[in-house]
């Protein structure tokens, strides 16, 4: 069965303190891995799609990387406005429409 595990569950950083969030996955053939940001009471906001091992995507202070077993979301010099829950999801080759989500990492950045 496809599984997605995110760690840590929660992360508290000081402004400017860089760190990484982890998403480990088990799927029978990866079609795509997706990162989302979710603010309290809102729907997830799409950030990145990664399709193959070695691929990297960047957006402002965020950089997503992908290996055959896991993905990392690197946050460089975070600001308080980066505080949110970050969700990882995978889509498998043998599944037409299901996107399996992890439970998320709740990031808090203190000024």
């Amino acid at each position, binding site marked *: 069965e496809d599984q*997605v595990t995110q760690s840590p*569950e929660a992360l508290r950083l000081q402004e400017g303190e860089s760190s990484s969030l982890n998403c480990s996955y088990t799927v029978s053939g990866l*079609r*795509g891995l*997706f990162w*989302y940001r979710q603010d309290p*009471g*809102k*729907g*997830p*906001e*799409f950030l990145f*799609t990664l*399709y193959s091992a070695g691929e990297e995507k960047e957006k402002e202070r965020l950089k997503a990387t992908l290996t055959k077993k896991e993905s990392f979301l690197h946050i460089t010099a975070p600001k308080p406005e980066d505080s949110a829950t970050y*969700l990882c*999801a995978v*889509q498998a080759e043998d599944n*037409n*429409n*299901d*996107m*399996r*989500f*992890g*439970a*998320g990492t709740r990031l808090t950045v203190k000024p």
Partner: protein
Amino acid sequence: SQTIHQWPATLVQPVGSPLSLECTVEGTSNPNLYWYRQAAGRGLQLLFYSVGIGQISSEVPQNLSASRPQDRQFILSSKKLLLSDSGFYLCAWSRGRRQPQHFGDGTRLSIL
């Protein structure tokens, strides 16, 4: 650009009452449409998805049903709500396989 609308934003319903949540997408045609439920501290659970008008696939057998009466309209319904139906319901759309899903702002449903 594409936008997705969900309403209402919050809803409080008594046990045993019916439910209708609506989702519409603008700016695209023939989207894939999805209904998810999100429990606190847990990942999103896919409830239903649709690849076209009148085509609904259910992922989890339960007290809920979905319908797609028009190309860009997706409705989540129940004839009789249970306490366990409480949660945060999210609608999403995508252009197809390998494409990201884009979410609405959700409906917070509380059952009393």
